[in-house]
């Protein structure tokens, strides 16, 4: 018992724990989610240009600016769609 007390248990450093957690965390992180999982890709591509025009017209009307001052871009971000609109005032 005395010797057991003297023999210290080797402490597990936090590096080991971090390594295990990292392996679990990274197992699914790089998964690519294509837009076709949610919407027909051909339909999506065809609709983008039409939708950009509609947004451009609306923004120009409500902000009272020329259409060329409205820039609309539609981006696909790993399974979701972002519509970015910039309006420049002269």
């Amino acid at each position, binding site marked *: 018992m005395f010797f057991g007390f003297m023999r210290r248990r080797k402490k597990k*450093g*936090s*590096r*080991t724990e*971090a*390594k295990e*957690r*990292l*392996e679990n*965390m*990274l197992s699914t*992180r*790089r*998964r*690519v989610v294509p837009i076709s999982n949610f919407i027909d890709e051909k339909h999506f591509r065809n609709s983008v240009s039409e939708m950009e025009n509609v947004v451009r017209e609306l923004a120009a009307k409500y902000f009272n600016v020329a259409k060329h001052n409205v*820039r609309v*871009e539609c*981006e696909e*971000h*790993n399974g979701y769609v*972002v519509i*970015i609109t*910039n309006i*420049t005032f002269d």
Partner: protein
Amino acid sequence: MEKVFVVTSGKGGVGKTTLVANLGCALAKMGDKVCLIDADVGLKNLDVVLGLENRIIYTIIDVVNNRVKPEEALVKHKILKNLHLLPASQIATKEMISPEDMKRIIHQLYPNFDYIIIDSPAGIERGFRNAIAAAEQAIVITTPELPSISDADRVIGLLENAGFEAQSVKLVINRIKPKMVKRGEMLTKEDIAEALAVSIVGLIPDTDEMVVATNKGMPVVLNGNQNVSVIFENIAKRLKGQPIPIEADTIVPGGSFLDMIKKLFKGSRG
């Protein structure tokens, strides 16, 4: 040989801007003509780290809006005349620039420089997309903590999706604490490289010199601290294709035994 680099991370505050500034200075010190581009529109910092915040006349937004040519917006460094900065604007948003704009700007600057280094904003949205749009090689920077490594992994995945090949993505580990690594309380460079499956081009230790350098607006490469300066020079050399072993970056913060003795005497005099 690639000459357009983007420095990115996903997570904020891991040292992207510091790396860009020091890498730019190291390359310029070697005689290369270098252009640094601050792609962090709205939260610009690269001008501050370089000490050029009072010299900005035009920004990247002026270039995007065709008010000036890219060369006209460049700010020359105070000491290194072959180091230039294309500053970001603070009163604009990342959405005001598109990846196509970035490609156009870099295409115009390309023939005039040996190296172009882009400072990416944190995050994986528009600013990140702009920053990587025209880059030929990506340097992902992370600290040895899990949130930062996890974000770096996400960014590496996005870079792969954007068409970057495995050998075009390199890793820099910042704020390594050798003593903690030795005690088994911090992930090692091998752990991180294995998890992210990319090769390491730099190991930067956690030192006070970085804070002092930023306060002075003088990157540590120009600040005379040999230990840390050598690390950035090593990274620059590796990017140029020189076979510098990664072990050359392993320094003990605080310096050698001789440095400690010097500090001791300095302290007793003060």
